[in-house]
């Protein structure tokens, strides 16, 4: 089969979502952001919410999410995305509003905004990329950095006496009555990608059906920050990150409702 034959629409088994534009992404090779961006774009498109969706971008590597997905975006101050999204959704109840945040943004500087938005049961989706490191600022310690893991600000490894423990914030959020769906997924292989997409679809449906706050944590790699090849990073994540952050649903009170 020649290339012309392969790219005929009837032979395509995979396509780039229309909402994902052609701007070259600034993400490093092997970074999970690109995959999660694509999944979010696919879900928005499949639900027909292109003209109804407002994304709230964080401060961190995904600060430029607004350059890649062709929807309206608000760029929030560091950690404030859930507060920004709260107002966007409350003032526009018929819109689809989601935040896209990293671990530093969501679980350190934005802890209060995250917890309280979820506790109020804001009808938003929080997409949470957890790679255990501050990527954009050059690989410093994050609240989710594993014990013993080396970063620029814990060069000898995270020490609990000095730095405390990795924060499992999704487990915390799952305790809140306002949160309807909290799940932890990953995107390191085809099966994981499929599951994450399913989770995102469910989260977006929850928001449109006003069921409360949905959080989709995606345990991710940061090959650059971890100083590994993309392949090594995926393997390291499966062994070490998944041990501390096991995948699966942490809470789902939406079934059958």
């Amino acid at each position, binding site marked *: 089969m020649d290339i012309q034959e392969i790219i005929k629409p009837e032979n395509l088994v995979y396509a780039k979502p229309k909402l994902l534009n052609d701007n070259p992404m600034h993400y490093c090779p092997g970074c999970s952001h690109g995959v999660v961006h694509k999944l979010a774009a696919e879900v928005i498109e499949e639900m027909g919410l*292109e*003209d*109804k*969706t*407002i994304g*709230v*971008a964080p401060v961190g590597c995904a*600060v430029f999410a*607004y350059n890649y997905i*062709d*929807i*309206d*975006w*608000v*760029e*929030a*101050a560091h950690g*404030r995305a859930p*507060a*920004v*999204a*709260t*107002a*966007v959704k*409350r*003032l*526009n109840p018929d*819109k689809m509003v989601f935040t896209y945040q990293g671990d530093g943004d969501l679980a350190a500087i934005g802890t*209060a*905004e995250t*917890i*309280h938005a979820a506790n109020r049961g804001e009808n938003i989706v929080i997409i949470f990329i957890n790679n255990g490191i501050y990527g954009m600022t050059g690989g410093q310690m994050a609240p989710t950095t594993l014990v013993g893991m080396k970063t620029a600000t814990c060069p000898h490894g995270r020490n609990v006496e000095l730095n405390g423990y990795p924060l499992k914030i999704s487990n915390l959020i799952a305790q809140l009555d306002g949160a309807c769906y909290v799940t932890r997924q990953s995107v390191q292989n085809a099966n994981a990608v499929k599951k994450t997409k399913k989770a995102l679809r469910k989260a977006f449906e929850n928001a449109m059906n006003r069921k409360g706050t949905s959080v989709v944590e995606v345990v991710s790699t940061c090959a650059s920050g971890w100083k590994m090849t993309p392949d090594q990073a995926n393997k390291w994540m499966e062994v070490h990150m998944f041990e501390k952050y096991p995948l699966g649903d942490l809470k789902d009170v939406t079934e059958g409702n």
Partner: protein
Amino acid sequence: MAEEVKLMKGNEAIAHAAIRYGCDGYFGYPITPQSEVMETLMDEAPWETTGMVVLQAESEVAAINMVYGGAACGKAVMTSSSSPGVSLKQEGISYMAGAELPGLIVNIMRGGPGLGTIQPSQADYFQTTKGGGHGDYRLITLAPASVQEMADFVKLGFDLSFKYCNPAMILSDGIIGQMMEKVVLPDYQPRRSEEQIRKDCPWSTLGKPESRGRNVITSLELDSAEMEKNNIRFQKKYKEIEENEIRYEEINCENPEYLIVAFGSSARICQKVMEIAASEGVKVGLLRPITLWPYPYKAIHDLGVKVKGILCMELNAGQMIEDVRLAVECKVPVVHYGRLGGIVPDPSEVWEAMKAKLDIKTSHSDKTTAETGDSIDPDQLKEVISNLNKMVP
């Protein structure tokens, strides 16, 4: 229909005026002496009538970022707080200025620094007019001197902030916030529809139709050349505001011998000072800046250079006096009088200080009268302070 005159506190007037303006959302956090703004809104429950959203946030930081989010959608949104809380809002104010978003912030000032006191103060003048947050930005600042102006400046503040896509602040204090006065509330105007907002604010993030590219509200620009262009655009806008939006009031200012420059509650106290001065044969005029930024430099200069001396009375250690001195280019003596930490001076105390500092000679036999307008009655002032003393921070 006859105008409906009501008696209420300044803080309450702000809440009622917001609903009547067609405000889309209020996001606040309790702090004395301004909690009546949110309390009144919650009591009025405008979500059942006009559809206005009222939400108690988890912090002042969250509240201002909710304002940022609402403003990004082209909505008329506001927050209110008092000094320590307004310090926390500076991040969001800077981001709003950087993203060129409209929005109204109310600061009912109390004495600082730090947790300070809940008594009235004007010590946030520098913070408000000279920066506060980071970066080269300006904040449109309105200083009401009466409960009526508290109500009126809600509309003015929103209108200016939308006209220039820049945040605006009502800078008041515990006296005007807590004092009860007669007020005529503005008429109800409807909230704008989504269709109207899309037309008026084509930059708003209300969902991207096929007919336009995506809208992005951001203050980020990593390319310095572009960031400089953005800053130049901001500065051009600030210049336009300085040219078009200066507001001030002159009272008893036909050929005065001396001048007082004071804003907000201090101006009301100084109206009484003018009466006392007149009874001792001295004609004192009052120039009251209404916009603290843009500042009425020219008006103060034109009047100021004709008098023997100027008193700048403010409830702080001397902040606005720097602008008064700039205005008159040190051509006339400019002195300061103020009390600190929440103490409010009596009009006679101000007059005695003014006489001493400017070496004013008086003669009771030359008694004149002054058109000094509606000053605060010292007894009423004492009552406001005494009520504040009963409050908890």
